[in-house]
């Protein structure tokens, strides 16, 4: 064998120890970069392609809304519980929405059981802001008795299997669960509608930056090498509802502008997939539809 390709590991098995240590790290990077140069990624995708998306709605019937999403091998479950309670004192005329994200300890060998860590809270916050700032819910429509009794929504997300880009998978699951949330009787009789209605439909697109390359929907291996990651949430009219840069690498102005443009059309693609799944789900549902 004349010149050898640099040493690299094709599928990373992580067991207790980080895999990219010492000599290997640089070598893997070289392989990755040589592929990126020809517009390809380690799994054969181009830079702007998402992995296969699978959405299942209503998987947890005890929850008022639920969705399970597979983005490649990243698996997120979302459940919505609806109740009633007192509003926050500073927003007496608004319903209450609480979003949180939890990592199942089997989602990755490095994850430990316990309360949500920095990572889980970070991802949960990004989803939360995407929904809140994108005004997905008109919280003022969720009031039963102003200042006293409002609808409370709990959106709980669980990462069940981690293979990168948990953020977008979580945003997809969150939207799927909210779109299929049915009010319990005590709420529907007062509000006069049986389904939760959304005003806007936020979804996120995450891009990992490695040198000059922006990779959409990064896998775990790609995230391991990303210098920085940018998550952009957009609503259906193309406006951006939240952005979050993580990791310490820098971004240029051009990067941000390009990322925003990619995010706008990618969220639209993803949104259509969710809408189709919701339509299928609701047409299967025997109960009368609250909305089209």
């Amino acid at each position, binding site marked *: *064998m004349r010149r050898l*390709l640099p*040493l*690299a590991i094709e599928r990373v*098995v992580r067991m207790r120890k980080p895999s990219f240590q010492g000599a*290997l*790290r640089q070598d893997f990077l070289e392989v990755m970069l040589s592929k990126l140069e020809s517009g390809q990624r380690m799994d054969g995708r181009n830079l702007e392609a998402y992995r296969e998306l699978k959405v299942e709605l209503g998987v947890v019937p005890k929850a008022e809304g639920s969705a399970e999403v597979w983005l490649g091998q990243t698996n997120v479950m979302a459940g919505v519980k609806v109740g009633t309670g007192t509003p926050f004192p500073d927003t007496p005329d608004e319903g209450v929405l609480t979003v949180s994200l939890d990592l199942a300890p089997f989602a990755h060998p490095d994850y430990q059981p316990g309360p949500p860590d920095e990572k889980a809270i970070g991802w949960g916050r990004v989803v939360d802001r995407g929904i809140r700032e994108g005004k997905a819910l008109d919280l003022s429509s969720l009031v039963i008795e102003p200042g006293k009794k409002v609808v409370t929504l709990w959106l709980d997300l669980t990462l069940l299997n981690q293979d990168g880009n948990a953020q977008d998978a979580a945003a997809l699951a969150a939207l799927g669960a909210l779109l299929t949330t049915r009010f319990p009787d005590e709420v529907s009789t007062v509000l006069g509608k049986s389904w939760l209605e959304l005003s806007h439909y936020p979804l996120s697109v995450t891009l990992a930056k490695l040198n000059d390359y922006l990779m959409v929907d990064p896998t775990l291996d790609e995230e391991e090498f990303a210098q920085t990651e940018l998550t952009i949430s957009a609503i259906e009219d193309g406006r951006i509802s939240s952005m979050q840069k993580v990791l310490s690498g820098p971004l240029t102005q051009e990067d941000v502008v390009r990322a925003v443009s990619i995010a706008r059309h990618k969220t639209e693609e993803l949104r259509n997939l969710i809408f189709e799944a919701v339509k299928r789900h609701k047409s299967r549902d025997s109960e009368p539809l609250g909305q089209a």
Partner: protein
Amino acid sequence: MKLSEGQTTQAREVVVPGEKVADQGFKPGEGVYRDADGLYSSLLGVVERDEARSVVRVRALRGQYIPHPEDIIIGKVIEVGLTDWEVDINSPYMAKLDARDAGVEVDPITVDLRRYFDVGDYLAAKVVAFDRVTPPSLTVMGKGLGKIRGGIIVSVIPSRVPRIIGKKGSMISMLDKMLKVHLVVGQNGYVVVQGSDPDEVAFAVSIIRKIEAEAYTYGLTDRIKEILTKRYENQNGKDSTGVASQRRRCKE
């Protein structure tokens, strides 16, 4: 050792833990335990009965690599000690490579073992001994063993490695002959693919993936052979090594 190539049409017998695999007359091999009225499987696996020696064993279909003496494995150095290296061998147990088993004179004052193998280096090594209570010990003394200096490491499910090797090495020798890469197969589920043409390396990786995915299907060797033949037939214009014609002959 190797799973037999399926010539028969009858399915291999898959058992789950607790299933009876033989009567008292047999001796329990790997993956089998003795209970009051016979021998039972302790694993999810495939039954192998050695009628001649009256041994029955169950080959795991799932699970991690458990070291056996004489196995060739690919490991990664994760720690360098004064007289040995700690090596991750993709198993529940971390292995030790003693300096003597690397042909290094042990003198902690003058010899820095990092000069030989450093943290992050990959090794092809042979398992010397393992009793589960002490770490498995390795050696790199031997042909083809030692530091791996290049290539891509493909990680496959360890229980499917026998299929990459094939019955009496039939699969691996075919791959060696037909693929334009060099392969080092570790029993622990790591396969090193070395070659100078990224395209050939990528193709070899896809072939290994296919063998892994279809490990328990019949006629696998023939199907792989067909794919290889097809590729190199179409490519023979590019082939300058002169082995293409030879390959075409061995097709049929």
